[in-house]
């Protein structure tokens, strides 16, 4: 495996292997000295064309714990408005000898283009491309689900687990990546969203879909419910009438939380709009695994970098 561009590129075996490696990385992260020499001498570039302190920091910590040299290359705004093209940026990094490039870009397919254009030799990790994919988010979500819901996590998949993804499916790279990866791992994925934000092409790939969160909760006993962030630009584009109506119909609040099974885990990729897609009662409940998702992000990203860049060397 050279690149990680799409969660759909991972086979069941590859996905389970990464998740299992992440368990080992989690042990490293609990040590006093949280460091492995695995990527010593390798250069990893964080190439971020969008603001995302969380994801960038998570990758930076992951690469540093594997002893890679990390360069943060933040180019705010699109390549078009900046003047320098993605091609020139990529070739500059190539000239500097980047072994791996972690790219976040507002254009769907940007990571794919970087990997297939011939501009650059190194491994490419897609850290979010437009409204397309965010495969490491899906991996950390799968890791968290397995960690919380499987007694013997190592080697296991997610067969039979029922997962709801709720919110702006249409514009969510988290939803696209999760839909593919969770299906690969055997989970049953349900999509819940207003009709304006639930494209038929994606609904067809899910086990089922609902326009009503209440109906979904009443009909399916979910093991995990994943709330998506509502982006501010959706609020003025008539996808739904108002924030209040959205919160009333599709928000996860304390009252709906009470109707879930006691063991159902509540997830959110962050950052949350508290009071909109999720309220404080749900976000801070014992069902919430939102902070575990953040912690697991580092372990999973270490595992991804290890699989792409370490060339199969042993973990100490």
């Amino acid at each position: 495996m050279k690149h990680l561009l799409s969660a759909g590129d991972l086979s069941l075996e590859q996905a389970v292997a990464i998740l299992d490696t992440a368990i080992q990385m989690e042990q490293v992260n609990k040590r006093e000295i949280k460091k492995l020499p695995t990527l010593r001498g390798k250069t990893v570039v964080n190439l971020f064309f969008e603001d995302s302190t969380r994801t960038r920091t998570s990758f930076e910590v992951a690469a540093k714990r594997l002893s890679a040299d990390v360069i943060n290359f933040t180019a705010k705004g699109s390549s078009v408005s900046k003047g320098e093209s993605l091609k020139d940026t990529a070739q500059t990094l190539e000239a500097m000898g980047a072994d791996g490039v972690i790219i976040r870009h507002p254009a769907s397919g940007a990571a794919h283009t970087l990997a297939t254009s011939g501009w650059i030799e190194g491994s490419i990790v897609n850290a979010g491309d437009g409204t397309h994919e965010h495969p490491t988010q899906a991996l950390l979500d799968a890791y968290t689900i397995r960690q919380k819901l499987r007694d013997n996590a190592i080697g296991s998949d997610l067969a039979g687990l029922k997962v709801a993804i709720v919110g702006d499916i249409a514009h969510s790279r988290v939803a696209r990546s999760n839909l593919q990866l969770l299906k690969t791992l055997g989970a049953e994925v349900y999509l819940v969203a207003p009709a304006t934000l639930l494209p038929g092409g994606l609904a067809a790939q899910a086990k089922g879909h609902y326009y009503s969160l209440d109906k979904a909760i009443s009909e399916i006993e979910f093991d995990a419910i994943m709330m998506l962030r509502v982006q501010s630009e959706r609020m003025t584009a008539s996808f739904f009438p108002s924030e209040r109506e959205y919160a009333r119909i599709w928000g996860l609040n304390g009252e709906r939380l009470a109707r879930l099974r006691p063991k159902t885990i509540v997830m959110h990729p962050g950052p949350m709009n508290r009071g909109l897609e999720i309220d404080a009662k749900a976000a801070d409940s014992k069902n919430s695994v939102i902070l575990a998702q953040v912690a697991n992000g580092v372990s999973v990203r270490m595992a991804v970098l290890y699989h792409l860049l370490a060339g199969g060397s042993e973990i100490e």
Partner: protein
Amino acid sequence: MSNFTLIGATLADGSKANIAVKDGLIVSIGTETSGDSIDASGLVALPGFVDLHTHLREPGFEQSETVKTGSQAAAKGGYTAVHAMANTHPVADTAGVVEQVKALGDEAGYVQVQPIGAVTVGLDGKQLAELGAMADSKAQVRVFSDDGKCVHDPLLMRRALSYVKNFGGVIAQHAQEPRLTENSQMHEGAVSTELGLAGWPAVAEESIIARDVLLAEAAGSRIHICHLSTAGSVEIVRWAKARGIKVTAEVTPHHLLLTDELARSYDPVFKVNPPLRTQKDVTALREALIDGTIDIVATDHAPHPDESKDCEWNAAAFGMLGLETAASIAQSVLIDSGLSNWARFVEVMSSAPAAISGIPGQGRPLAVGEPANIALIDQSAKRVIHGGGASKSDNQPYEGMTLPGAVVHTIFRGAFTVRDGKLVERG
């Protein structure tokens, strides 16, 4: 060489004849010869092709194409006339610009370059351009289009349709409802949602076509629909024609062959407006071209330099090359499919586009006394497409594909512009 005879050419009806050319005209068709003899056995002789939709990019975007390089690409594709779209810089919205484009075409001398005028000032959709001045200019403009943009204001469209009746003109509409296609990147459907690229829904084209055929009916005017791309659009045009509305429609070669599945590569060479649609649409467009619902093949040849295509999809420009491959795709759809014939090929590639535009001396039958505008093609050739050909740009969507047929000679006003597949120096 002002006097020569094409020996043993196959005509559109399948018969074989010698075609003698002298001083720019066809002087005999039959067994006679005069002047130099040129072996044309095995070649199909057809009236020179006429493209109603070409982006020559000059003035303003000479890094993409010039009138000369675009004319050369056209000649290599068997064309003897092209209609140059108005979205240049400055926009072809005045008599001065259209006369400049025509003069550049005359100077290049490869094809007849007929400028299209903008409908609105600066393609801005706000105020009618001086259509009368362009019609009366040396360029004699009869086709007007804001192509690249839709004339979306219904009142302005109504006025434009009516106003061009003053001089027998026609509005060529780029049918795209702007609000339904904000930031659109590709056809809206299963593939776009999977790829996370913003969709360009079929209804954005169909709703404008439906509106405009009704406006044309109300105004008693002609309307031409550019690059029709969906099965639904075909149904609307079919309905409008049955109702007696004076509508004509074009389809591009790429919409007859390629689908939105190609966007999975994220290779922007497949980014085009209107976007590549689904196989169901391709099938409907092919049927409509054969049954006459769609009148013509028009290339929408849209050259772009590497810097506009060697980038991420969203940053890339819309458009693809088409002049040197159009005849091959038309042959594939009409002839090699076994579903139609060379007579229909001549209509869609030459006589019908010339008739829509009213361009003089083009789209005429191969007959004694007619201008010698002739394309000779080797129907049995197979070509592996590589690179941009004579065009200044390389945005070649058919790279690596094998297409049937090859243009061997092109004769424009009695002189070779292409001979044995190679450009002849002109001017």
